[in-house]
């Protein structure tokens, strides 16, 4: 499958990354080379083979539903780029009207 610069641009938007046109061109070439290599997986016969989403040989892990140790608000906010009291502050992103 061939990757074009437009595909890369669309993927970048989904990944919340921005690139210059030059960067996109280089990245498209690199992704094409890597995905071409990955394409050899299409040679494997996979009839009846289920995906290995989890390697855990157990169904679930339960615990009592009770309050345990937790971070204080100050701990949780200690690395915030910006805060307002006990809240994370971000620039306004909703229209004013």
């Amino acid at each position: 499958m061939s990757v074009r610069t437009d595909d890369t641009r669309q993927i970048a938007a989904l990944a919340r990354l921005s690139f210059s046109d030059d960067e996109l061109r280089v990245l498209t070439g690199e992704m094409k080379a890597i995905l071409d290599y990955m394409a050899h997986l299409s040679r494997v016969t996979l009839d009846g083979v289920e995906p290995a989403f989890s390697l855990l040989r157990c169904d679930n892990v339960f615990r009592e539903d009770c309050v345990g140790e937790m971070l204080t608000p100050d701990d949780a906010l200690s690395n915030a780029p910006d805060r307002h009291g006990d809240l994370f502050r971000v620039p306004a992103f909703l229209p004013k009207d």
Partner: protein
Amino acid sequence: MKLHELTFSEIRHGLSTGTFSAHDLVESALDRIESVDSSLNAFIRVRDRENALAEADEIDAVRVRGGKLGPLAGIPVAVKDNISTRGLGTTCASRILAGYDPPYDATAVERLRNAGAIVVGKTNLDEFAMGSSNENSAYGPVRNPWDSNRVPGGSSGGSAAAVAAGEAVLALGTDTGGSVRQPAGFCGIVGVKPSYGRVSRYGLVAFASSFDQIGTMSRDVEGAAEFLTAISGSDHRDATASDVDVQQYTSPVTGDLRGVRIGIPQESIGEGVDREIAEAVQGAADAMRSLGADVDTLSLEHSKYAIASYYLIADAEASSNLARYDGVKYGHRASGVGELDEIIAKTRSEGFGPEVKRRIMLGTYALAAGYYDDYYLRAQRVRSLIVDDFTRAFERFDAILTPTSPTPAFRLGEHVDDPLAMYLSDIFTVPANLAGIAALSMPCGLSGAGLPIGLQITVDRFVEPTMFRIAREYEAALDLRLRAPDVNGMGQCG
């Protein structure tokens, strides 16, 4: 013999007989960091000397009055900088986490402290553990203590170099596709990737959650085994940490491997592997045979698809895990833009390095509508076949021997312009991560150019005792006491 040249076993003996103190050891490690780390760049941050020595003094005082001490009491330990340490920062070698100080310790860190170990600093890595050379760090590359023109491997390159150069006795690394074993192999030390679920991932900054495991590094098998015993076990803060009993992974050398069945995959000593590496692995197999082990060849039919399957799944998981870096709750936030979407994209584009962006892009691609079935889902189905290969192999064999890497440490810059060539160097390490089984790398000789060669011993899930038994007996039989050249006048091999 200088303190920084001793192995864990020798150090533990010296501490118990009073030949030296925890204070002496911590001082020696910090002095060593001061004298060689400007050449190696293995550490991103070093612990405050006064605090570290005060911890050592407390341990010495307990020892003097005959009090009870943990199994790692007074041992200087380095911790990879993607494992959370409260008060000591955690950057993942990324600009996006510059200045981040986690509000809690990782479970593995809590446990090593409970065992009496003393953290001396946080080690350099490929950004977010994505890389095989430690060249993808916002803090600059780490150099191999055996040859300053060569990479230490990655992504736990700082941890491996620190242990090889005597800046720490033990180190924690993390292994998602070989990131403990490959640098251990390149730097001539022992590195363990435990079974998936053996060590809690709480506090390990997530890269690819179905592969990530914290592992141990040491100059001898005993140190790696004792360290793993100390940090293993279930954890209510990580549901994937298994409640399978933790065994004491250390035990005495017996000189006997009778009854142990060892398999060598034909593919691992053939085409694409340096001849001297294939010969060293054969030599290790011969040594094990003389200890009484049964050695035979086998085939892991689907291992040729492991790299493609691994990178598609790992990058898909990474693209999801790294979505959390949006500049809101912690880490870098871009300035000078208005819309939230723009802020997030600018924050991430300024904060992540090229390899991390490349992997997020590939992972997003593999998961995107229209590509999901052909890439991500197919890779997960191939993963099932790789798991099945191992299940069949472990019906016939107790352990599998391969090289850790197809070549010794490569030169700095050799693969930086060719990401795919870099990925292919992980050919022997990624299968264990895909299958969730345990594997260890240990030295098995030196190349003609004087570089360490790594031997990988792989066992089934939670069969670490067999892995350590084989490694311990082989280490004693080989009696290869590797010592990196004096780092101040670091060697440059051919």
